């Protein structure tokens, strides 16, 4: 209590200076925000690879370092995002990314802190650390715990239909056939996503890719010695994929099915098997028995679980300029990667750590995983950036029939892979005229978030718009942007836009819900994750634990609680917003088919507009 009070005093003291400084910087039109963050001393920017880290992991860090003012935002899950940030001189203090290949980050490795001489690196098993070690011994990135990613099977559903859980590839094929006969989708996944395409492609052929030839090719590929697929290794892979598409009955229509939809089918017993993670296995074992089975090989000895680090973490080398800052950052990294932190990543459902002294914690849903761990049959996905993109292109093409056979797919893959290596001159799609600081200011909020939310409100044509600030990926800086880079301005994988009408009273209840409900995807954990309003203003009070809504206004006038407003909500329907709207008494809402990331890209690129001007949307007391 006392500590918080003091912190509040300190922050209150610092804020006016920060604001003044920020104002000065804004006029100068320079590198806003970044330096303000540095100068703040105790302010640490953490870019999360996914909004799933915010709800528990972000809260955990906040609690571990009460004196640190964390600035969280959700980044595009790509090392290219950080490369973009690095080029802009705007790297966050701590970087997290799931999609990772050492070769992708090597060009800008000097901008990152070398952790090879730290206790942090020393805590890792050599066998894992080797994958992150450059030839000169430098270690910039460290892996968090392993994510297990394989086939989630609704055992209850299978058993209900007298179908045993398959134990090898042949049985899997049989099972698929039986399920199809029952009218149940044997296997579904969000093939609209590149990672799904890539993981399924590699997972179902893991036994091939882990053969001596497969390993040998991979080493050549990862070391840059080859940029094309080995026919010996990969032709069987595409042949297996061709078969897979065939017996699972995947069609081009399935490419429309998103991640949440997939689990909708699964929950509704419309799909018996989906690509899932250990955490999802645990989540969907509450009302049924779900088991996470490996990607099947010919025999049980050839079954492999696909795995990868939940994410990799690195720190900006900027921290090395000050020993105190470096120490703080390393302490935060340690907290992120110790057992406590790792459990927060998996929400305590399972834990397979890479660092020493952290024993695996495997729930019963993942019983088979333990055997695979013991036999070392964990296939680590080949996850270079180009592999994601090309896998999506080729697998989707195979599903749609664009690539009718393995050969055409193989050739297309190789071609695309080589094309991705070719460097082309960047095409400038847009120019942003001014900087927008992401840093949250108690009097006004986040400029960058306000500009994005107001732009969305304008695009959607609603009276009001509301969404979490952390959906905006940090500072938006003036300059030229390619279309790819415009996508880096916001996160946007699972985030949707929900449209509805709300009375003023309902908006009050909605805001109260999202401000005070913890542990959900969309919960507010600190200032940087507060909601941003478009078309109305909020007055919020900081409490001992969390926040409390005090007042809503429109143009400075008290919000009419009886008036009806058209409202757009940015967030995940299934993970929080549905409940939030229900809590507000809004049952009738529609989901926009538009991607909010794309709205921003289109506004800036196709429409040639600037972002809508930010406004002071919040007063935080």
């Amino acid at each position, binding site marked *: 209590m006392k500590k918080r009070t003091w912190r509040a005093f300190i922050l209150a003291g610092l804020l006016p200076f920060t604001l003044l400084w920020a104002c000065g910087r804004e006029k100068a039109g320079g590198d806003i925000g970044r330096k303000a963050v540095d100068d703040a001393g105790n302010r640490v920017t953490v870019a999360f690879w996914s909004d799933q880290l915010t709800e528990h992991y972000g809260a955990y860090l906040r609690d571990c370092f009460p004196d640190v003012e964390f600035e969280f935002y959700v980044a595009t899950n790509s090392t290219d995002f950080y490369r973009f940030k690095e080029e802009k001189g705007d790297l966050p203090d701590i970087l997290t990314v799931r999609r990772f290949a050492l070769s992708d980050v090597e060009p800008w490795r000097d901008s990152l802190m*070398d952790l*090879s*001489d*730290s*206790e942090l*690196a*020393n805590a*890792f*098993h*050599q*066998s894992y*650390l*080797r994958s992150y*070690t*450059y*030839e*000169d*011994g*430098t*270690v910039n990135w460290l892996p968090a715990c392993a994510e297990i990613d394989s086939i989630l099977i609704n055992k209850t559903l299978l058993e209900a239909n007298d179908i045993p859980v398959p134990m090898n590839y042949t049985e899997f094929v049989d099972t698929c056939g039986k399920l199809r006969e029952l009218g149940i989708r044997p296997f579904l996944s969000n093939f609209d996503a590149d990672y799904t395409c890539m993981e399924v492609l590699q997972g179902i052929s893991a*036994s091939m890719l*882990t*053969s*001596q030839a497969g*390993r*040998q090719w*991979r*080493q*050549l590929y990862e070391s840059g010695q080859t940029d094309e697929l080995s026919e010996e290794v990969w032709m069987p892979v595409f042949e297996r994929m061709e078969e897979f598409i065939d017996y699972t009955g995947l069609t081009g229509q399935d490419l429309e099915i998103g991640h949440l939809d997939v689990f909708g089918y699964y929950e509704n017993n419309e799909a018996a098997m989906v690509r899932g993670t250990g955490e999802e296995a645990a989540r969907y074992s509450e009302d049924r028995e779900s088991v996470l089975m490996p990607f099947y090989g010919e025999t049980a*000895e*050839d079954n492999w679980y696909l795995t990868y680090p939940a994410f990799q973490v690195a720190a900006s080398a900027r921290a090395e300029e000050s020993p105190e800052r470096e120490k703080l950052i390393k302490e935060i990294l340690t907290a992120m990667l110790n057992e406590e932190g790792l459990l927060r990543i998996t929400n305590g459902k399972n834990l397979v750590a890479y660092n*020493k002294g952290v024993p695996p914690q495997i729930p019963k849903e993942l019983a088979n995983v333990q055997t695979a761990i*013991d*036999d*070392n*049959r964990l296939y680590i996905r080949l996850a270079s950036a180009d592999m994601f993109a090309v896998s999506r292109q080729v697998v989707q093409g195979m599903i749609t029939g664009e690539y009718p056979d393995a050969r055409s797919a193989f050739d297309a893959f190789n071609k695309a892979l080589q094309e991705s290596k070719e460097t082309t001159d960047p095409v400038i799609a847009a120019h942003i005229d001014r900087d927008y600081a992401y840093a949250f200011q108690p009097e006004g909020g986040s400029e960058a978030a306000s500009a994005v939310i107001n732009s969305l409100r304008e695009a959607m044509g609603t009276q009001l718009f509301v969404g979490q600030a952390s959906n905006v990926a940090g500072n938006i800086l003036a300059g030229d942007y390619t279309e790819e880079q415009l996508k880096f301005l916001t996160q946007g994988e699972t985030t949707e836009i929900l449209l509805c009408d709300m009375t003023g009273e309902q908006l009050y209840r909605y805001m109260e819900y999202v401000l005070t409900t913890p542990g959900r995807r969309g919960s507010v954990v600190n200032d940087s994750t507060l909601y941003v309003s478009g078309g109305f203003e909020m007055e919020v009070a900081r409490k001992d634990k969390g926040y409390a809504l005090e007042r809503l206004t429109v143009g400075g006038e008290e919000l009419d609680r009886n008036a009806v407003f058209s409202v757009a909500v940015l967030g995940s329907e299934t993970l929080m917003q549905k409940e939030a709207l229900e809590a507000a008494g809004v049952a009738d809402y529609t989901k926009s088919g538009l991607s909010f990331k794309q709205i921003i890209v289109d506004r800036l690129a196709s429409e040639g507009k600037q972002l809508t001007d930010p406004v002071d949307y919040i007063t935080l007391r």
Partner: protein
Amino acid sequence: MRSDRKKNGIILPVLLAACLLAIMVVGGSHFTSYLQKQIFLERTTQLNEITSQVRANLSNALDSHWNYLTILVNMMRERRFGSEAEVESFIGEMEAVLETDGYHAMLLLLDSRGNCYDDHGKYGVWTDIDRISGGEERYTFISDSSREEHSYWTFVQKLDKPLVSGDGTAFTHVILLKDVETLTDYYDSDAYGGHNETYILKNNGTRMHDNIDPDNTIQAYNVLKVLEEMEGQRYTNLREMLTKQDVISANFTYNGTEYYYCLVSLEAYDTLILFLIPAQFVAYGTVNMMGAVIRMLLLLMVAIAVLLIATMIFFARQRSSQRLYRQEQENLRRQEEMNEKLEESNVMLARSKETAEQAFQIAEEANRAKSSFLSNMSHDIRTPMNAVVGFAALLARDADKPDKVREYTEKITASSQHLLGLINDILDISKIEAGKTTLNLTDENLPELIEGIDSFIRPQMKAKRHTFEVLKKDIRHENVVMDKLRLNQILVNLLSNAVKYTPEGGHIVLTVQELPQSGKQLAHYRFVVEDNGYGMSEAYVQKIFQAFTREEDSVTNKIQGTGLGMAITKNLLDLMGGSILVKSEKNKGSVFTVELEFAVSDRPADQDLEKDNGMTGNLAEEGAKEKEESILCGMHILVAEDNEINAEILKEFLDMAGASCDIYENGKLAAEAFADSAPGQYQLILMDVQMPVMNGYEATRTIRALNHPLAKKIPIIAMTANAFAEDIRDALEAGMDGHAAKPVDMNVLEQTVRAVLEREEKGTVD
């Protein structure tokens, strides 16, 4: 100058000392640096040797394991496995042959899918499968992935041709694992008593295995990076250095302890060996010896420094002593100077004292003289007074005896005259000594003055039957400017003494001689009074000019005298700038020689005025006429006199002379009486000077200023106790016509009146 010399004197030894010290410091530093370099060289050389030996040992050990593995692979080439069990059996056999249990080793086989086989059978995919997937034939590394939770040196040989078992399993690799701990002996050196740490690193500097000694100095994953960043580390890029040199040895400091390390590459195994040891354990003996040398050197330096300091102190003290000596000498010199000055001062003081004493003696003498003077004066006054009083008493007793009365009266008169003369002399000398006497210079004729004196003194000569000669020699200037009265007084004094102190019938000569002139306007005269009288003793001659001194002998004691005459004479001569010389011989006579210079006058002297102005010396001559008839007879005289007795005496005297008078008690009444008088009522006015209401001078001026027809003509004669020359002059200036001093001597008065009336007749008075 001296300061510069002193500075130079200090600078040289200081400079020398500083140079010596600098040489010692530089030399010591150089020598220490040299020793340290030698120690460093010794240590690194020793480490290089030992590490090279370790490298050789380890290399040999690894090579020997490769030999084992090669033998094994060769043996395998001949084998055919029908089943998995045969594989297990074969592995067991080979382990027995190689005695792997005793050497903490294990044999493994890998199949083409990465599955691993040991003597217990297959157990999944080998953890380090990725490490041998680079396409090489041989791999050597340390693995932490074994189920035994140990770190193993791992020797992997890819079979040039996979062995396919009866069930179709293709065995591709043979692996020999050797517990890292068992190879430690190869790289731990006994030379350092177990104080060394050995790190087996990959070429990139990272640790090769997880299981490291928790006591190791460097615990980090990237050992070389930590090593490069150590304090005092001279190499910042060890990997690059290793490409240039086979062995790197250097030192660094960690947590205040100096360490030495040696880094060598085991190229064949893609491995680095880092040998680390605290400096104190490297080249211990040599360092101790060098330490002893350094200590000795330090002692030597300290000794030299002490010697140097002592020498400097010695020199400094010597210089200080010299300085002190010089200072003492200087002080002595100054002291002597001071003493001399003090002595001079003492002499001066002594002189001053002597002078003071002399002054004191003089003062005392003067005091005594004054006492003596007073005593003498008292005696000399009392003597005639005694006669006056005594004979007055006898006169009263013998009033009826006319002879007695006459006798007594004559004696009283004589005593009174003596007393009067005495009083005049006393007053005269007192005035002269008080500096109040001034010369009344007038144009005079010297022969006339001599004649006047001759006339005055000759009767006294006659009275004692002396022969008296007046000689005039070489008189070229007769008219001179002089105070006639004073010269007259001097010569009369000398001649009177000659008369008195020469027995009757003596011979007295006055010689007046003009000497050669010292200046054109000055006439130089010599006056010599020579007698053949009693003479004086030489002792008396020495004090003859002192007041109240008289030769005391039976003869002179009977001669009446004031004892002031010669003193007055000497004082007057001093006043006039003249001199007097006395030569005398007892019973032979005395010679008084006076020399005077007078300004030559170009005007003849007024002889009448001269006679009238109180030349008492001439009065004796005039006295003969007065006896015949008093000039005062028949006159009616106005008298101004405040003293009743004097008035009565005067009235009686005038009455005796046949004159009458009106007496008024002050000047004012007298003037009024004259103003009221009828012309011719008074023929003469006798005017006292000191009177109440109006003094005599003022009354005279009043009378002269009256409109009375005779106011300007009536003779007024001062009759006063103010008898000095100045008083006479003042009286004349006030308008009076003559002066007669008190006590009233009728003869003098009559002579004065006669002279005034005669002048009146000649018209000189007006």
